[in-house]
Each structure stands twice: as C-alpha cells, then as structure tokens.
C-alpha cells in the first residue's frame, strides 16, 4: 500500500469531525462576532471587552498555570508509580492497573464529595495532623490551589499512567539490564535510558492531563471554590447565567487557543524526542 492510501485512513474520522465538530465550532466562532447577547448586531464588542480587560489575562494565565502545576504533580508521583509497575511481577501488575484506573470509576459527583472529606477543615488530613500535634489550627486546604491540584492529580493519574505504561511495557528489558551491566547507576539508567524511551507515552499523558485539568469545571469550582477563577467558570457564567453567548464564545476560543498552543508545543517536543529515539 502506498503513502497516499495510508493517509486516507484518517478520512472517516476527518469526515465525522467535519460534520459533528467543525461545523458547530465554526458556528461558535461566528457567534463570537456579534456585539449583543441576542445575537443580532454583528461587531467586535465582545472581543474588545474580553481582551481589553486586564483581569482576563490574569484568568488565562492562572488557567494555564493550573494545567502546568497539575501536569508536574502528576508526573512527580505518577512516573515513579509507572516505574514500580514496570518492575512488578505480572500478578501485581494486574492489581496495580486496577488501582490506577479506579479514579475513573468514581463519578465526578462523588469524587468532589470525597475531596471535601479529605481536605476539609474537619477533614481527614487536618484531623490526622491535629492529633499528631503537628499543627494546632486546621490548615486551609479545601478551596486553595494546592488542594485543587492534589485532587486533580488523582483524577488525571489514569490519563498520565495508561499511555505511559502502554509505552513502557513495550520497552526492551534488555536495555535496562545492559545499562546496569555497563555499570550505570539506577538513577543514570532512569534518565538516560528509560525516560527518553518512554517519551512518547509521557508526552501523550501530559497532553491529556493538561487539556483535561484546564477544562475541569466541576473540580475547579467545587474543590477550588469560586475564589480561584479559571476560564471554564467564566464560560459557564456567561453562557448559562447571563446568557451572553457571544462573550462565552470569545472566552471559549481563548481557552481553546491557549490550550492548543501549549498542546502543540508539547506535541512538537514529543515528535522531536520520538525522532531522537528512532534516529
């Protein structure tokens, strides 16, 4: 089969996307160029309103930062877990996979309740620290960015680990043994052999985690509270509370473009590292 034919494999998805995704998206872009919430007066007023307000930039920056922090936290604890998985015997691996996908089996509705229980003023963490005498006043964890990042880490973990593990488990175990036999320390093997070879999975995981944490409206508002303001909250308020759809469209486009920019940068890095691995 020649190259042209291989490329044609994307056609079914491309057609489905054109019909079900691109068309509504273009409508959204169209709606953003109306000045009034009744969608009758064409104009740029909503764009001017959003981009003319310094508060908007703060919210965009906070949203992207939240994504970055969540990605970092997820890598920090998730990658070691993937390494443990890699070294585990097959039976334990099955148990670990089950544990790793567990967050997905909790609906977002109860998951937020669970985090209120863990992070709350009278919550599990505070009770524990108080009874150990480490703190004398309950810490404020719920409705802080720290608490939000911790809770997002839980739900994003499967998104990071499943691609990572599906890539890592195909790595040739001989590579690590060879590295060890050559006298490399385990740290050195990790950073010179395992991490570069697992790059495609890591990048895929980062993409999914970043995109999903920046748009996680329910976690952001319930666990983060309304003191922390991210773009999805603005979109929700504008489209469902005040029904200013043109403005909601402008904010959505801002979110879409900011996240896609970060995602393409990550993608590009992934491609380069992929080239490095095969090169």
């Amino acid at each position, binding site marked *: 089969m020649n190259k042209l034919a291989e490329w044609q494999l994307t056609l079914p998805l491309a057609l489905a996307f054109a019909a079900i995704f691109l068309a509504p998206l273009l409508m959204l872009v169209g709606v953003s160029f109306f000045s009034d919430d009744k969608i009758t007066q064409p104009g740029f007023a909503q764009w001017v309103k959003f981009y003319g307000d310094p508060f908007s930039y703060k919210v965009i920056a906070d949203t992207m930062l939240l994504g970055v922090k969540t990605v970092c936290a997820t890598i920090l604890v998730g990658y070691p877990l993937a390494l443990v998985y890699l070294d585990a015997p097959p039976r334990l691996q099955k148990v670990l996979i089950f544990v790793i996908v567990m967050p997905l089996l909790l609906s977002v509705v109860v998951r937020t309740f669970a985090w209120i229980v863990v992070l709350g*003023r009278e919550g599990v963490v505070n009770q524990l620290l108080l009874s150990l005498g480490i703190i004398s006043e309950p810490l404020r964890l719920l409705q802080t960015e720290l608490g939000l990042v911790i809770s997002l880490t839980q739900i994003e973990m499967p998104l990071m680990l499943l691609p990572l593990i599906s890539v890592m488990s195909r790595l040739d175990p001989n590579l690590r043994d060879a590295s060890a036999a050559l006298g490399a320390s385990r740290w050195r093997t990790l950073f010179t052999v395992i991490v570069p070879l697992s790059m495609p999975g890591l990048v895929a995981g980062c993409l999914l985690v970043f995109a999903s944490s920046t748009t996680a409206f329910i976690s952001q508002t319930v666990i983060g509270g309304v003191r922390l303001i991210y773009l999805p909250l603005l979109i929700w308020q504008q489209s469902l*509370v005040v*029904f200013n759809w043109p403005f909601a469209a402008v904010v959505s486009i801002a979110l879409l473009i900011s996240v896609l920019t970060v995602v393409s940068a990550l993608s590009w890095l992934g491609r380069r590292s992929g080239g490095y691995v095969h090169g």
Partner: protein
Amino acid sequence: MFNRRSLLAGATALGGTSLLPSLAHAKGIVTAATYPGSWEDAYRSVVAPALKKAYDVDLELQPLFAVDQIAKVRAARGAPPFDAFVLDPGPRITGIEGGLFEKFDGRKISNAPNLPAGMIDEWGICVGAQVVGIGYNPKKLPKPTGWKDLLSDPWVSRLGITGFQTTFGTVSLIEIAKAFGGSETNVEPALVELKKVLPKIAAVGNPAAMPGLLQQGQCDITYTNIQTVAILKSRGVDIEFVKPASGAVAFFTTMHIAKGAAEADNAYKYFDTVVSKAVGDALVQPPHNFIPVNKQVVLPPSLPMTNLDEMSTYIQHDWSKINPLRAGWIEKFNKEMAK
C-alpha cells in the same frame, strides 16, 4: 483480538436494543422540564400519577436547572425539547425577553379560583413559593438574628457564601447589601463588606457543593432556601432555618409553555394538576416540603407561615430591575472574591 467480525457482531447486538423508539401509549403526553433532585422525585411520585388519573396524560420529566432550560430552548430555536418550563423569577424574565414562552391563557386553569390574586399572568402560572433565609448548624453556632450577623464573629469564620448565579444567592446578597445601606439595585455595600472579611470566610462555593460543605463542617452557616434546609434536616444533617430579623425573602416558582411546544393543551392540564388541592396536600408533606399556592391546602407547622396570605409580608424583589444588572454583578463578584 480486534477483528472486524467481533466488532460488527458487537455492534449489531447493541444496535438492536437502541434504535427502536419506545413510544408511550397514553391518550396524551406532555414533556416538562423539572429541577433535578427533590423536585423531580416529587413530581414523578405525586404529579405524574395525578395527571394520569385526571386526564390520562403521561408526564415525561426532564431534569434541568432553570438556566439549562433557558439555554436549551434558546439553542433549539423554535423546536423546544420540552413543552413546559419551571423557572425562578430571574430566568423567567430572561425567557419573556427572549420570546421563549407562548402566551398563557388563564381560563384553561380550572383551579384558578383557589389561587391567590396575581398567581396567573399573560406568561405563566405560579406553582409554588420559596422562602430564603439563613441556614446554620445549631450544634456549632449560636442562632444568628439577621443578615449583618453573617459578617461578624463568631459566624463569619464559619460562613459559606455563593455568588449571583442562583436566585437564593442573588436575593441574599441584595438583603446583605440592604443591611449595609444598599438597595435592590445597589449591591456594592455587600461586596465591600464581604471583601473586608474575605480572609475569614470559610468557603466561597459552587452552590451545588454547599450541602456537602455543610455536612462535612467546612462551613456551618450560609444563606439558602427553606426547602433545602428541610430536606437536609430530614436526612439527618444538623441544620436549622432562621428567618432574618429584617424579614425572610420570598419568591415564586413559575411554569410556562415553551414557544412552539408540541403539546400545549396537555401542558395546561399538567399545570392545572400541579396547582390542584390534592397535589398540593401531598407536596407540602415531608420529604417534599414544597410551599404550594392553592389556598385550600393546609400548611404544616414546620413552615414559617400559617397561610399563603402572609406571603405578602415577605420581602420580594423586582427581577425586571435585577436582571439587567446581574451580569455586571457576577463579573464584580468574580473580581472582588478572586485572590
């Protein structure tokens, strides 16, 4: 392991169940939006059988919050996904201004003589009242007396607040503003005072999270609907309702016919059933705890009023003035409360 055969076999097996439409066989049908949770439970268990019995009309309920109903009908221009709305005053005004309702013909409501004056207008019918005040945990806090107490110790450090996105949040913030010299159209004083005590406030929450936050002790006092308090209390949550000294706020929940509704006639039958005495008698009881509008319904002692005429002594707001300002208030709230 993924070959075409197994995929196709799976697809056909699944497809068999889904693509056959399942139509109801009653004389008529009406599709009504209802609030998720307690409203839906009550309407399914009380109103649906009553409607079936009286008119042989099947009630299909679609659980949607008021704002979601408006959004859906707006997006589906002219082809509404349901026949009847149930709305709070704010979204009601939005609906009227957006031309989302059919004109309402009060003569089609046989129970109209049993309703207090003004319950039916050209756009719809009031089906219930809601009272807003303060809910607090009596095991942890002394009883507050008014809105100002919320912003002072010991209450403020246990306070949970919500913004202008809900009806009860909006009216409560207006009342707090009034306590500090503001008015129905000027909520600035409330935001100024809240900002002063912001570091002490226990939670600035999403309204959907408030029951959980109260239950787990993250906050122990908030402004809320009396019905929410009654339901949580009946579920064993430590919470009591307090009518503020300056008066509790009341607002009416209204029903409307969606523009272009397929089953407008059955919608009238549905409304008539909702405001009937029999349905009111059932809805006023626990676990539903509704405040019905039919004057023949005897109100239980748990409600802060003995008859519906007292509703006129409650504070009510003019939502046609509030609605145009609300978008600005929401943005202001975001900026003032943001860190």
